[in-house]
């Protein structure tokens, strides 16, 4: 990582630029570290060999000049100035053995490290941006094809549906003189009778709700009655060995199918 871009300007140009930078404003720099990095460019190519002392002096001079020009300085810059002044004194005065804390050299080394790291990040950022980029140097597919979610609807009907449908049409205006005493009750006998007639067509598993009498689903009371009796009738038929029942899970639909008499 020693390929830090060497400044090719001669010193006078660099000096001029530094002077210009002063006149412009501090906003041109991305913070005090950036300013320090810029100042260090006028010194050495290798950031590891930068004279931190000299750098501190340059920075402080810069701040003084900015103050003289009444440039508004962000707090960051002043904090850095104070710290660099402290560092400068540490570096210039002989170390005081009674004093605790890091030596001036340690602090200077760390500052040099920070500068080098910042410079390194800038270099790799430039390398990164110089890479071939998607949409600029290489390209993705122009015509993309979405994975289609094909929603296929399959309509089903059972033979029972078909017959019930037909029966419904054939009987819908038939006159029925039959009167029930308690028309909100569908008795188990009624359910049994109804189901006995129907189970002959129930060769496949069918939800027992299919066997509910037509028209009983409008009034909740009648629906409850019909549900109870249909369920009871299913159990009765299962007991008689005429049908088989199954339910996959608690509260899942109960299914019924005709039991083939082949066993016996």
């Amino acid at each position: 990582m020693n390929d830090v871009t060497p400044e090719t300007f001669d010193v006078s140009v660099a000096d001029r630029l530094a002077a210009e930078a002063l006149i412009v404003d501090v906003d041109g720099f991305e913070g005090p570290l950036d300013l320090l990095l810029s100042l260090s460019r006028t010194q050495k190519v290798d950031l590891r060999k930068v004279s931190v002392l000299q750098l501190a002096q340059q920075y402080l001079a810069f701040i003084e000049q900015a103050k003289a020009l009444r440039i508004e300085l962000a707090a960051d810059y002043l904090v850095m100035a104070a710290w660099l002044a402290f560092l400068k004194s540490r570096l210039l005065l002989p170390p005081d053995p009674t004093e605790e804390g890091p030596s001036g050299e340690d602090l200077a080394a760390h500052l040099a490290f920070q500068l080098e790291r910042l410079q390194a990040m800038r270099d790799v950022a430039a390398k990164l941006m110089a890479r071939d980029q998607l949409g600029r140097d290489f390209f993705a597919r122009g015509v993309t094809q979405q994975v289609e979610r094909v929603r296929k609807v399959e309509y089903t009907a059972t033979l029972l549906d078909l017959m019930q449908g037909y029966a419904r049409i054939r009987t819908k205006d038939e006159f029925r003189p039959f009167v029930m005493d308690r028309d909100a009750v569908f008795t188990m006998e009624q359910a049994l009778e109804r189901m006995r007639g129907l189970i002959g067509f129930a060769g496949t598993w069918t939800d027992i709700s299919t066997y509910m009498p037509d028209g009983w689903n409008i009034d909740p009371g009648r629906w409850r009655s019909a549900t109870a009796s249909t369920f009871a009738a299913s159990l009765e038929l299962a007991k008689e060995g005429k049908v088989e029942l199954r339910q996959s899970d608690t509260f899942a639909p109960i299914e019924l199918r005709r039991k083939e008499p082949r066993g016996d």
Partner: protein
Amino acid sequence: MTDTTESEIEESLFEAPPMGEQERMVEAILFATAEPVTVKELNDRMPHGADAAEALVHLRKRYEGRGVNVVKVGDAWAIRTAPDLGFLMQKETVETRKLSRAAIETLAIIAYHQPVTRAEIEEIRGVSVSRGTVDQLLEMEWIRFGRRRMTPGRPVTFVVTQDFLDHFGLESARDLPGLKELRAAGLLENRPPPGTVPQLGEGDVDAEEETEEGQSELFED
């Protein structure tokens, strides 16, 4: 790559890139462009002296039998998924839905009365049959068109299909339980749903009588 010899023929000031290169170029352009690209556009975009038409011939051959192919779309060219791999671009989810009451009734009437005309279905149901219902049944291939009636207007008739029989596990439409069996099974015992006004439709007694006869007549073919 078969480049140099081919391109050497070009004696233009700017030498055209070797054919292998041109093929790569056409490949990249067809890949990245959203629209099919004409030979002219290809030539315009490629370096001077390039022959996109020839490069296309090579490229097309290269993609023969591959997962994507170079295809002509109108007078332009594009890369497209090989037709046999279309299934990879779809994720199928099957949803089962109960057939509507109208569809079931219509289907039942066709099954019991086939061949039956739309007017007859409407007469039996007492309501008009929507186009969608018939279309749905046709699409499901449970019904199909039968012979036209030799009556004025020569209306089309509907009959049920083998698919229908297969679905309901019937050998023939004749195996459908007759009215008597329906009655015996209690299916004709239904009272009109409470709350619905009894309909004074066309006399059903006749209709019923007619049915029996209609049915036998019907299952001839």
